[in-house]
């Protein structure tokens, strides 16, 4: 599948990346689209996430076309207005990647054949893209339970940190401080 540099954001990744002072990691995408409904959600819960100087967020009104099958899916999964809008937009911009941390939204997007990832993927991608060192990202992962409202089991976070150490040839002691 052809890669694209466009992403469409649900509220979760914007909020979680901002909590980690890592919104700049979105800056190397050619466009970061934020549906109006998502914008309103973030504005309500964490307005400062919309003011990051290092990334340009494009607020966009999503056109709603009649789609009974889609409507049934989103209601079955109890998706909120923001998630619905983000998925609708991702369907309209079919080569763009959807970013969401909502499991139900991600399940729906996956079922619709969309490319979808979350905050964790963006954090780890930062090493591959030269935006952060492996050590930086390991420290971000370790700080996640205290700094972010993204809830991931600590043993899973430790396992992911170990995967990073293995991938980038770091020993646990060299990456522990």
């Amino acid at each position, binding site marked *: 599948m052809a*890669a*694209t*540099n466009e992403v469409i954001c649900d509220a979760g990744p914007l909020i979680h990346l901002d909590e980690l002072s890592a919104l700049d990691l979105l800056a190397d995408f050619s466009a970061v689209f934020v549906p109006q409904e998502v914008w309103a959600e973030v504005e309500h819960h964490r307005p400062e996430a919309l003011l990051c100087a290092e990334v340009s967020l494009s607020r966009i009104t999503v056109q709603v076309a009649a789609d009974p099958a889609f409507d049934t899916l989103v209601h079955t*999964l*109890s998706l909120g207005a923001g998630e619905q809008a983000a998925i609708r937009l991702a369907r309209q911009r079919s080569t763009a*990647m959807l970013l969401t941390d*909502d*499991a*139900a939204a*991600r*399940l729906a997007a996956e079922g619709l054949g969309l490319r979808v*990832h*979350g905050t*964790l*993927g*963006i*954090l*780890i*991608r*930062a*090493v*591959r893209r030269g935006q952060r060192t492996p050590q930086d990202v390991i420290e971000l992962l370790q700080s996640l339970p205290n700094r972010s409202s993204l809830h*991931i089991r600590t043993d*899973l976070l430790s396992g*992911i940190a170990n*995967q*990073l150490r293995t*991938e980038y040839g770091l020993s646990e002691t060299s990456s522990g401080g």
Partner: protein
Amino acid sequence: MGTTDTTSIQAHIPIRLLAEGEALVKAGWFRDLDDLFIEALRRYLDSHRPELTERFLQQDVDWGLHGGD
């Protein structure tokens, strides 16, 4: 829900979230805050199955490490 065993909990929650919940109750969308919290918790648990979340996390790790974009 009348036959479901229940218990009480004490939790610290953001004042603003509580105010929003109270506004929904006051507007008549929920009988009381208990019903609102039960519905919110049920919806969260329905959509956050651990095995699903773990699969998504591993997809993110694989893409983060080895993706092409």
